[in-house]
């Protein structure tokens, strides 16, 4: 199935600066695998060492959170959109700004 994977701004630097990547996959997990195979630098941003999705990265199939579907095993259809939505906090790096604690 031809699926579009949407890349959020913070991760575009690791995906050739593209805002989306077209992949072929049968499940959401395969779509993500294909994505990190094409763009190896993305892997550590999306997955923990044990291969599980990081808890501050949510993945949506169209507008549904895959945690409430079949997670990575959720099947995809032609034309579906998989969105990666990481938590963002503000204008500057979290750790750096947190210590200054200024407001955005």
């Amino acid at each position: 199935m031809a699926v579009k994977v949407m890349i959020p701004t913070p991760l575009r630097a690791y995906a050739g600066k593209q805002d989306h990547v077209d992949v072929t996959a049968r499940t959401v997990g395969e779509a993500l695998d294909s994505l990190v195979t094409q763009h190896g630098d993305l892997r550590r941003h999306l997955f923990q060492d044990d291969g599980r999705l990081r808890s501050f990265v949510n993945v949506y199939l169209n507008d549904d959170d895959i945690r409430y579907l079949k997670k990575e095993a959720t099947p995809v259809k032609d034309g579906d959109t998989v969105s990666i939505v990481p938590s963002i906090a503000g204008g500057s790096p979290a750790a750096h700004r947190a210590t200054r604690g200024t407001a955005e």
Partner: protein
Amino acid sequence: MSAKSAPAEAAPAATLSKDEILRYSRHLIMPEVGMEGQLKLKKARVLMIGTGGLGAPLGLYLAAAGVGHLGLVDFDKVDFTNLQRQVTFGTSDVGRHKVEAARERLSNLNPAIEIKVFETMLTSANALELFRDYDIIVDGTDNFPTRYLVNDATVLSGKINVYGSIFRFEGQATVFGAAGGPCYRCLYPEPPPPGLVPSCAEGGVLGVLPGIVGSIQAMEAIKLILGAGDTLVGRLLLFDALQMKFREVKLRKNPDCPVCGEKRTITQLIDYQEFCGIRGEEAAPTVSVPEITPKELKARLDRGDDLFILDVREPHEYQICHLDGHLIPLGDLPRRVNELDSSREIVAHCRSGKRSADAVAFLKQAGFKKIWNLKGGILAWSDEVDPKVPKY
């Protein structure tokens, strides 16, 4: 949910003065607001956490709309780099406390409302107390510890949390904490570990972006007060300013949520710095590498020592200022390492010294022996050696 946000308890019937009727006339002639809605706004109590980029449109629009009781929480002072987006402040406010400058601006905009300022950092010790007198909390902060603190404190105190966050060209907004609705931890159970997602090199924000996202938060706060329309409860709005696209995804209440789920494990506020992996005064320590101070570097260059300056910032940063170094952005270093001569002495630098510390650690592992990190980066060079080098 609107019942929760609106001042439902039987308060003495408020009225509008003749001046207020004139001021709010463009609201009053709309049936969705009208006299009834304007009085709801007048009785409303909204606490803004942060008076920065998101807080600027929030404060201006909430005050202009006639939200009767506004609280502002911020401990910070206005600095020059704020003015690119924090439009509440003027150049003459630089150095002033943000809450004071904001109070002056908002009071001038609307003298008829009550503005309370809290010149303090929001902490686990004061959050619940600060939230007590308000119905709606608007999160205009920029860091994970405060966002989790705002979330947990709103859940524990049963308040609504109007959420907005931004990064470069991208924004997110939603409403958490409505009855039966999800909270921030339902969406993101845990924050990213420090240093993993955005690095210094990728920071920054286009000044208009917080203006747009903060305006969305202001609109949601006002709708919650009025009980009008469909709010963002249960929907996460994603805004990409470069593509100028709005999308939304569904948010669900997570039954296993540690703070609002059925078997909650968080029943009081915790240490959010620790929770976010940030301990003590400083962020997680960076790798320890050999350093050279700007003054030492200057002395050695003046002596004519053969030093190779390696600049690991991004090309757009090099355009702002540079030390005539050889530019290899940190992310490109692994595949461009062959451009470096390990027999020469190398001094690596970035803006503040953090990225170049990573570069030095990487190059040492790759076998480079004569390599130092410029302590404090080009910022320290500007402070200690050459004030003509602009800081950014």
